[in-house]
């Protein structure tokens, strides 16, 4: 999976840019499978990407179009997918989003994630052997009825609180 060193991220969004370009030859947030949330007033920049969560909410696809690949990545079958949007709704952190009727989610670029290569701050890593499983249950209920952008914002706010606390304790030290 893709892991993050939050304190190193400058928010440049090169991960997002290169993700989009690799997958489509075009550049834009809509075409990216990793999306950087900027919380301007807190100085937080948070790239949100599929966490290969323990719950695997998205696999409850009514068309059985989603399966898990050998690297733990989410694979969407273009023939089975009907663009119903269930996966987008089910993902608690906004890591799957439909664009032009295709659910976009991190596929690890087949094992050579371009976001990792694009990051010049060493903030994003590819950890194929990550044993610790991320649980996203805590975001499920609060995320109900929200769009992907809002879900990403809530997730980023919550998961960056420790860094804010660290900065503030360093400041008073």
């Amino acid at each position, binding site marked *: 999976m893709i892991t993050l060193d939050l304190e190193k991220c*400058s928010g440049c*969004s090169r991960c997002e840019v290169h993700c989009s370009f690799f997958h489509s030859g075009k550049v*834009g947030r*809509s075409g990216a499978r990793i999306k950087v*949330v900027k919380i301007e007033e807190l*100085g937080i920049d948070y790239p949100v990407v599929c966490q290969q969560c323990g719950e695997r909410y998205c696999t409850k696809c009514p068309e059985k179009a989603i399966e898990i690949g050998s690297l733990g990545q989410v694979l969407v079958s273009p023939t089975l997918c009907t663009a119903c949007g269930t996966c987008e709704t089910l993902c608690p952190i906004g890591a799957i989003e439909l664009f032009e009727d295709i659910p976009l989610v991190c596929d690890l670029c087949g094992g050579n994630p371009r976001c990792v290569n694009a990051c*010049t701050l060493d903030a994003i890593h590819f950890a194929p052997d990550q044993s610790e499983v991320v649980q996203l249950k805590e975001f499920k209920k609060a995320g109900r009825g929200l769009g992907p952008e809002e879900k990403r914002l809530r997730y980023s706010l919550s998961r960056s609180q420790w860094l804010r606390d660290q900065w503030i304790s360093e*400041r008073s030290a």
Partner: protein
Amino acid sequence: MLYGYGGHVLRVDLTSGQIRREKTDPDYMLQVIGGRGFNSTRLFDELKRDIDPLSPENMLLIGVGPLTGTLLATSAYITISGKSPLTGILGDSAAGGFFGPELKHAGYDQIVISGRSQKPCYLVIADENVEIRDAAELWGRDIWETTAAIRQALNDNAVQIAAIGPAGENLVKYATVACNNSRMCGRTGMGCLFGSKRLKAVAVRGTGRSTVADPPGYLELCRELDQRILDHPEYAKRKAMGSTLLMKALNGIGILPTNHFQEGLCGYVDAISGERLAQEYKVKNKSCYNCNLHCSRYYLTPEVESEGPEYETLCSYTSRIGVDDLAFALKMNAFLNRMGVDSLSSGETIGWAMECVQQGLFSSDDFDGLDFTWGNKEVVEKLLHMIVYREGIGDAFAEGTRNLARRFGKGSEQYAFHVKGLDMICGDPRGIKAFGLTYAIASRGGDHLRAEPFFELTQRFDEAEKRWGIREIADRLSDKGKAVLVEHTERQALLTDCLTMCKNVGLSMDILDFDFAARLLQTGCGLKFTPERVNEALKGVIERDRLLNIDFGIDASQDTLPKRFTHEPLKKGASKGNVVPVDQMVKEYYLIKGWDKNGVPPRKR
């Protein structure tokens, strides 16, 4: 199919509420490229000359470059242009962040705003859907609150916003427009122009994706640019400190403005340096869209937090006005960012007042009881608040240093350090001669970014010989060949602005040349941008800028510097004994340009 470009120009008339989308014309873009070149050419073509800059007739243009929002790193800027409320001549200012790429992804190359709204408003652009919204709830709020409130109102945190603060609303002549809270279009009062149109902000969300003509070829060039940046000898330093590295660097060569340019050497530079900022207050790097330099910083002090500051702000609120307190400068940076005030122009009004008091021209009685002794932080803070809200003496200070000095008179004009009404930047030109020439001829007034002739600081003598056949060009204290350098880098700077790229990368790091840019434009846009064609376009823009300024009343007598820099040699430090032989250099510059001795291009004669 138009590649690279967004494909549309958006016209909004705030008086009538009319909104119109036009198609971008590829043949026209071959002549102006984009960004600043596109903006100032439109001003040349469409702007009535003899208008009050604050009148509805003035135009407000927001332009992005043809390759902004593509794979190309460091091209995330926007340029905002119009007739400057501060100077009355060509005004424009650029800022990075995330607004530019978003505007591109929404499908636009330029926004053209005219008229004046009845009520405070803001513009919301969501791809092809554009509306003018009521800003009653936003008026009076600072930039950070405004950005957050708009994102909340639109229920979309990914919306990018260019906004003004109370200073812009109150028509402070050097009010700024901010992208991403702290990325400032700082110079020439574009925030005042927003305020005069009762436009609080422009919010944009683009769901489109940019395309390029030749993706594999383009990818290769973008990789090369990435590598040039990563391999640059100053990469680590610039990444750690950004432009604040200049505090110690400029002090080292004796040109760090200290006590309003009375000296170029600051005894307490270590206390206010970029090194100290990075070590004690910085918590992480910040960055513009798709940049691999990450030169900006986020900081926390016991009192405030913000992104920045850049060198010009840091110097303006420390040595330039005799302040040795870094935390204070960081507090002022946050305040200026929130309120939307240009640090250079506000800082110059303060420096002017402090110098006038020291010289005995005025006392605190002339300034509402404010005691302008060097480094009086309490007064600086109080005055800034008065400027933003135009209270008491702040009302006069809000007009900019040139107007302020005219109003106070008694010879205080000699201490108003501006060129053509634009306050001078923080680099004493006496130790950097090409910069001196740049301030004198820059088409927006006393500014370095119109040419950024950083090469003269590099001591790359062999390279100077190779490029221009004049070794002395690499010697900052020599005036020899500097007109040649400035004529060259003025085109390079404009190229950078037309691509809305970062000048640190393009010029200071000497990474963008004409051939490389032409290849980027060809593979990116698919148009026949040869190096010759690019240069023709750039020359055309520079000439039109000059013609426009002549229409605004500029003549050769204003292509000069304040007397201190031409007649008072620096007394200490590594530039000791130097002044700027500006008249000679300006003459050479005209000659190279083919302008007559009055600085008039042939087309006008």
